[in-house]
């Protein structure tokens, strides 16, 4: 503890403020007033601010702050602890939280109208509970606390997805979601209980103490269980099926938090277990993580490219980015397995930076999608278009988000991917065995592929959604959204830009985290704003200078032109479409845009199409063509539905036991008695 470390009372401030909101908004739920609209969101923003403050204080300081709560039962203590890792994730939670809270003011007005306060109050209340529970997950320092907060987080988000329950689709999504996450929690419970079996206590502190003493194969079991449990929440393929259903179903500012933050909480858990409770991860663990990560990354972004619903596109791209993060974790695991602490530190650094960045730009994009829905009344790319004139602010922030998520300099998305490549390279150079060579090479190629595909994906999303002519009446009459929503988006856009231009700030904050996890850290040099890689080998990236350079060099040709033949003239005419008039129908559609990729990767994503042509009587008339294209839901069909059918059919068979015949029942008793008697004799 040094003077920078946050005092006890302020650590609890965010949770306290969040937890205040449900009561508050339910109190206001009957009244129609400005207060009822603003107050809850203001309190939430206050809480988020407090969260950022606490996180910064902790990360700039050293050591950690711990509280012993009360004991639920004599064995189960609720204790909290704020250490660097928790603090970093507190930051990850708080930044999008602030934006979402602000955004929510206008968004809820738009979606529920100001006339009926009850549903909006419910939404605010749930948002408060959601944020509080997420914060508690990262602060919890005992199994019971962690699991309570974890389950609350899932339940609250479940209710947010289901909403008022009138939409059957939302109900179904919510059900799939909560069941998968609940079963996942079961695996987590087992993992924690195995740890508890060895440490003799349910407290994380005890886990840390006895971390070394667990036999190898039990460590493996723990890791696998943790992967199942947290992987379900992270949406790793094939545990992802709930994600593209649930995230879009929720209100957009909630989607932003679910996709941007909640999935990260699972990463937090994975890191805790993998680097604190079971040190010395086995080699296969790293390889497994890298493999799973690559699969999720590539398939995720491919599925995103096949989607028409803007929010589903974003949801699938979340699967992709969680995949990238998992690759990062895998690299770190491989490095720590080979005992290269610095490489592990670099990989963790990269992973966490990317994690933060993703939470920012994914949040931004979801807010943008919500704004589009509010302004244009649809999320279907095939019905959007031309928003750049109608919704300039939304367009601007969505463009920034798109560039960030496509990993383009100088935005923050690129920093993370750059660091991950660097860590891959250091892994390759330091721990070279042929097996690892293949892993590293595949990882590098796969990540490059992912980056390029996500560029394609967001050229499509932005280009089709926002540029050219509107493709539907609703979109034609689209209007810009209110100030609070713009403010929410602007905040995240600004953060994305700032994190892109000054990545060193984040890296500096992450020093204590890696120090705590792998015992060493990578000190980024501040020379020329460059980010040096682990071995200080001068492979570097200086965002600010790149921007200046771009500006400086970009003007040269234009200057030349100016000098050579004065200022140019410009004439505005209709687009040339071979003599006709340009109609929205002529424009390249989202489906058409994805066609080449659909064809190139058809082996991976198994698309299907059906074309039905109605030939009219007269040959002069154009035949009517019904065209339908999509992607087979492989996992649903071959994994989950099969499981469900098995369970239900077996259940139906067993049901026959309860035949209604009393003699059968008596026979059960009789036989049971005889069997036990024979056994015990």
């Amino acid at each position, binding site marked *: 503890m040094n003077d920078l470390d946050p005092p006890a009372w302020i650590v609890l401030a965010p949770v306290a403020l969040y937890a205040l909101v449900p009561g508050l908004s339910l109190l206001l739920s009957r009244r129609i007033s400005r207060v009822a609209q603003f107050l809850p969101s203001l309190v939430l923003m206050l809480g988020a601010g407090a969260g950022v403050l606490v996180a910064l204080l902790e990360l700039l300081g050293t050591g950690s702050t711990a509280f012993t709560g009360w004991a639920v039962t004599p064995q189960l203590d609720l204790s909290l602890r704020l250490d660097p890792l928790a603090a970093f994730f507190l930051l990850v939670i708080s930044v999008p939280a602030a934006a979402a809270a602000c955004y929510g003011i206008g968004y809820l007005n738009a979606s529920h109208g100001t006339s009926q306060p009850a549903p909006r109050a419910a939404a605010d209340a749930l948002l408060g509970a959601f944020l509080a529970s997420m914060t508690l997950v990262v602060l919890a320092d005992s199994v019971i606390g962690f699991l309570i907060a974890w389950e609350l987080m899932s339940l609250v988000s479940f209710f947010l997805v289901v909403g008022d329950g009138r939409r059957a689709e939302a109900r179904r999504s919510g059900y799939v979601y909560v069941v998968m996450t609940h079963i996942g929690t079961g695996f987590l419970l087992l993992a924690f209980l195995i740890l508890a079996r060895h440490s003799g206590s349910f407290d994380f502190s005890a886990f840390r103490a006895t971390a070394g003493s667990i036999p190898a194969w039990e460590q493996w079991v723990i890791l696998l269980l943790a992967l199942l449990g947290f992987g379900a929440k992270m949406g790793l393929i094939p545990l992802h099926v709930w994600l593209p259903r649930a995230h879009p179903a929720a209100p957009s500012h909630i989607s932003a938090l679910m996709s941007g933050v909640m999935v990260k909480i699972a990463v937090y858990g994975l890191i805790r277990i993998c680097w604190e409770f079971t040190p010395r991860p086995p080699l296969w663990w790293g390889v497994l993580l890298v493999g799973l990560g690559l699969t999720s990354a590539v398939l995720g972004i491919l599925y995103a490219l096949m989607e028409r619903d803007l929010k589903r596109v974003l949801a699938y791209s979340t699967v992709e980015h969680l995949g990238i993060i998992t690759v990062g974790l895998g690299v770190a695991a491989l490095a720590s397995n080979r005992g290269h602490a610095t490489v592990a530190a670099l990989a963790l650094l990269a992973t966490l930076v990317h994690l933060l960045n993703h939470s920012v730009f994914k949040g931004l994009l979801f807010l943008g999608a919500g704004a589009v829905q509010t302004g244009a009344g649809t999320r279907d790319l095939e019905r959007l278009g031309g928003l750049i004139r109608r919704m300039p602010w939304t367009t601007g922030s969505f463009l920034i988000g798109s560039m960030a998520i496509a990993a383009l300099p100088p935005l923050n998305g690129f920093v993370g991917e750059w660091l991950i490549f660097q860590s891959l390279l250091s892994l390759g150079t330091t721990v070279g065995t042929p097996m690892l060579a293949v892993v590293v*090479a595949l990882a590098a190629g796969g990540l490059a592929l992912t980056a390029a595909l996500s560029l394609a994906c967001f050229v499509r999303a932005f280009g089709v959604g926002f540029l050219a002519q509107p493709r539907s009446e609703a979109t034609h009459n689209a209007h810009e959204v209110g100030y609070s929503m713009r403010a929410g988006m602007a905040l995240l856009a600004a953060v994305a830009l700032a994190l892109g231009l000054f990545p060193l700030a984040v890296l500096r904050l992450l020093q204590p985290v890696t120090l705590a996890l792998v015992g060493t850290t990578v000190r980024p040099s501040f020379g020329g704003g460059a980010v040096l890689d682990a071995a200080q*080998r001068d492979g570097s990236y200086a965002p600010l200078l790149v921007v200046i350079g771009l500006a400086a060099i970009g003007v040269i040709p234009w200057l030349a032109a100016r000098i050579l033949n004065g200022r140019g003239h410009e004439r505005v005419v209709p687009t040339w479409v071979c003599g006709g008039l340009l109609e929205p129908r002529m424009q390249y559609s989202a489906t058409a*845009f994805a066609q080449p990729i659909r064809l190139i990767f058809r082996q991976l994503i198994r698309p299907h199409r059906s074309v039905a042509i109605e030939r009219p009587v007269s040959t002069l008339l154009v035949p009517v063509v019904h065209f339908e294209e999509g992607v087979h839901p492989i996992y649903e069909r071959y994994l989950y539905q099969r499981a469900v059918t098995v369970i239900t059919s077996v259940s139906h068979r067993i049901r026959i036991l309860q035949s209604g015949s009393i003699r059968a029942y008596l026979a059960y008793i009789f036989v049971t008695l005889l069997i036990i008697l024979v056994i015990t004799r």
Partner: protein
Amino acid sequence: MDAILLVVQVPLILLFAPLLQGLIKTAKARWQNRRGPGVLQPYRDILKWLGRESVVSEQASWVFRWAPAIYTAAILFAALLVPTVARRSPAPGIADAIVFVALFALARFWLALAGLDTGSNFGGMGSSREVAFAALVEPALLLILFAVALPVGSTSLSALVGHGWPNASDVCALGAFLIVAIAETGRIPIDNPDTHLEVTMIHEGMLLEYSGRPLGVLHWATQVKQLALLSLIAALFLPWGMAPGGSANPGQLLVGLLAWGGKVVILGLLLATIETGYAKLRIFRVPDLLGLASVLGLLAVVARFVVVH
């Protein structure tokens, strides 16, 4: 020292790029038993375009107007990073090989958006194909750089400059890079820079709505991109005659300059030869070729391990 390189390399590349394009065109013409327009034709074209007024679609938004500027800036900056005369990137510490790739991506992103912005379906088609094929080119390019970077353990372009004769890994990488170069410069058998036939065009499709000064600049930038790629090949795999990093010796620099020019021209002629030697691939056969590039890149990385360890 870097400052001088910097100051030299900008005009160098800007002025040399059209010439290289002219040489390639002439070479192609000769292969086809034509006289060709002469090596200076690209200069004339660019000057002509820079003078013309630009005709802009009424659909076009500021994205369309800004795209050429950002495209050009990104390409030029990328070109600036490549070690040409000396074994040293003119902008060390600012950006490395990965940024080099990312800058190409940045350029591509904006040009593709511009293609969609006017609502013309040719533009859309162009950007759609561009991003799709780029998805295959980028992994290959990155794997190549990875293969080269592994032994030095750094992604700095200065560090990547090759030493001595290429080994097995380098050969694979070089092969891959040639394919990448063909794809990125939009040449046969992948794309055809001289066609405006909508079924085949990729790069040209996105430029279709541009005219006048923006078109001129875009073409210029594209030529610079071509030069940058070829110079990178030269620097990575044919490092002979390059002046030592940070050397101020005029003699060395002169040698380096001549060596660079020579290598780039030879590579250009090679491209021309390939272009005349092959027929354009059907658009959806292209992925196989690009896939080959990725495989070669992969091999390069693996081979590197076998070589090193």
